[in-house]
């Protein structure tokens, strides 16, 4: 019995040790699982036409990832980015996101940059009931009305008029009040949308349209277009263009001597540092949409200065826009929203995240963000800035305030408009 009792004790000890080891081991596994990264997947325009914005956007997201991981990650797990180059080609998007979801098994997704690259992602996200954060798409959810889509460009509930609203509101309040309008834009998605919005606003404010034309995006010489506009003697010239056309239109306006009372509106590219530093004083007087400017009213948002310092320190090595005032703060804000939602819900459940994002006002480096109809910002906040007192082509002048003065909206206004255009040109 004694022997039997000893053996029994040993057996119990062995069983206990084994179970203990298994528990510890399994605990170890849980610890290891706990340290598994949260994967955020996306495609991004790293080559092709939109890569000048796609690469800075990627850098901003990487900075956010580093910031979050320094603070211990999300839900106690490090964040890992899984991304592929969509080559600015919408046809690559379905394949990229299928791979991200089925092969890479990412936990969360965000979109790539731009309307055309978000559009093909929408059906995939809807089919799989994913929460999707869009990076600068114009009216992507207008037709789908997918409730789990959110978009960081501050276009507001009416995206089509968002680019032009500030421009025409400003024009309508000037003395003497301008009467006639010329609108022109590229035959491409964004300019077309912007022109639709502009036409609506022209009607609303009672201006008279004297020129309304579009041009192919591959146009080389813009002087014939500007000459035709000049012949109409329009008071307001609204241009909806992509970077090469923006440069072409602005140069042609100077060469032909176009002198409207107010000029600009929806010119993409003038916000880029390489374009600003090349165009220099030619920018003076242009009133154009923007999303961020180094003005005191915009620098007041918490974390923006630290972000820009980090971005600008890393930009040269990454070969991207050295100042990063256009898209990067919003790219960072987009993942800030996602991160805050994960932290608050303590979950990666897509529906819980969407419900939280829909109901919450987020505090980000671009200010307070609240989503509304169709996942757009509840209240639009597209800025209208005017380039003033730009001298030469030095980059340093654009780091500080006073060169891109915020005119609109009122709550972010940092200076007064110089009117008419010719008064600011000289």
């Amino acid at each position: 019995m004694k022997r039997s009792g000893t053996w029994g004790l040993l057996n119990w000890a062995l069983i206990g040790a084994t179970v203990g080891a298994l528990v510890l081991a399994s605990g170890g596994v849980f610890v290891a699982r706990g340290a598994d990264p949260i994967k955020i997947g996306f495609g991004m325009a790293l080559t092709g036409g939109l890569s000048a914005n796609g690469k800075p956007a990627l850098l901003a997201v990487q900075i956010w990832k580093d910031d979050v991981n320094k603070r211990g990650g999300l839900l106690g797990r490090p964040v890992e980015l899984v991304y592929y180059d969509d080559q600015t080609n919408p046809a690559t998007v379905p394949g990229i996101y299928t791979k991200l979801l089925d092969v890479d098994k990412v936990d969360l997704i965000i979109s790539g940059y731009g309307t055309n690259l978000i559009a093909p992602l929408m059906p995939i996200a809807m089919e799989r009931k994913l929460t999707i954060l869009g990076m600068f798409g114009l009216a992507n959810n207008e037709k789908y009305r997918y409730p789990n889509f959110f978009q960081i460009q501050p276009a507001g509930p009416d995206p089509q008029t968002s680019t032009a609203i500030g421009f025409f509101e400003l024009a309508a309040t000037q003395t003497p009040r301008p009467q006639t309008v010329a609108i022109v834009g590229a035959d491409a998605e964004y300019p077309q949308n912007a022109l639709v919005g502009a036409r609506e606003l022209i009607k609303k404010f009672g201006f008279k349209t004297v020129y309304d034309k579009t041009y192919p995006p591959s146009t080389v010489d813009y002087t014939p277009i500007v000459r035709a506009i000049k012949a109409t003697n329009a008071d307001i010239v609204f241009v909806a263009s992509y970077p090469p056309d923006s440069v072409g239109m602005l140069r042609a306006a100077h060469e032909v001597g176009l002198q409207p009372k107010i000029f600009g509106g929806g010119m993409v590219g003038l916000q880029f540092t390489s374009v600003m530093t090349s165009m220099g004083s030619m920018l003076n007087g242009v009133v154009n949409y923007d999303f961020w400017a180094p003005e005191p009213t915009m620098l007041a948002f918490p974390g923006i200065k630290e972000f820009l310092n980090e971005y600008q320190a890393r930009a040269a090595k990454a070969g991207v826009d050295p100042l990063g005032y256009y898209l990067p703060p919003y790219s960072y804000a987009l993942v800030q929203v996602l991160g805050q939602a994960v932290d608050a819900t303590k979950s990666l459940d897509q529906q819980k995240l969407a419900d939280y994002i829909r109901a919450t006002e987020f505090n980000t480096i671009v200010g307070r963000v609240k989503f509304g109809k169709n996942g757009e910002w509840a209240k639009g906040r597209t800025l209208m800035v005017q380039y003033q007192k730009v001298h030469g082509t030095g980059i340093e002048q654009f780091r500080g305030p006073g060169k891109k003065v915020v005119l609109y909206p009122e709550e972010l206004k940092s200076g007064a408009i110089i009117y008419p255009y010719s008064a600011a040109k000289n």
Partner: protein
Amino acid sequence: MVAGLLLGGFYAAVSLGVSLIFGLLDIANIAQPAFVILGSYAAYVMNSSFGLDPILTGLLFTPVFYFLGAVVYRLYYGSFERRGDESLRGLVFFFGVLFIIEVSLSLKYGVDYRLVDAAYIGKSIDLGGVGIAFRLLVPCLVGLAMTLALHLFLSRTFYGRAVMAVSQDRLALRLMGADPVQIKTIAFGVGIAAASLAGALLITIAPVVPSTDRDYIGRMFAITVLGGMGSVAGTLVAAVILGVAESLMATFFGPSWSLAVSFGILLVVLAVRPAGLFGR
């Protein structure tokens, strides 16, 4: 009209390389626009680093581009043309070259829009009530000079005549004691050298990114075909026709029709004269 003529001069400059390589040598070098963009970046680097005039840079870099062209042709010849595989595989080869140049530029210089600064950019001169932008006038004059230089090279020099001969009958040329491969290497090199200057002209007119080349592929080949394969004078005339058509449409009927009308002219001309305006 004047703007169209200026644009035509520039179009001629960017199309001369294609006219020489595709029109005369019958090599479908679709990487030519990428070499033009390479020329633009050379002008950008020299302009932003040393303040060198872009067009002067384009001129200074022509020997470098000539050598580059010669190397590319030798590679193409050794891999495809010698074996008679030049048609489809050669096309793929030049596609590859185009992508390699694009991606290399993206990796080295990023994907930001690049522009140059020169005293004549942004200024214009008033001639009889017509404002002419120097930014377009200078490239037009350089384009005309390039056309004249290429015409003189092909018609007055031994190597130029040999290039014309190799395009017509390479066997006969061989019987005359000239090496067709050597001649084609020279011609290809000259075509790529032209891209150096054309690239400098391009960045003088508009900002470039590595993928800008894709905007020019259609125009360059359309001008070459419209002018008549291998005809330098035809290239100039076709370039001016397209430039004037684009400008007139943009001024009087709306710019969105300009490209459609240009390519419409190409279709009509090819229907009437399949060999192009000056083709034989």
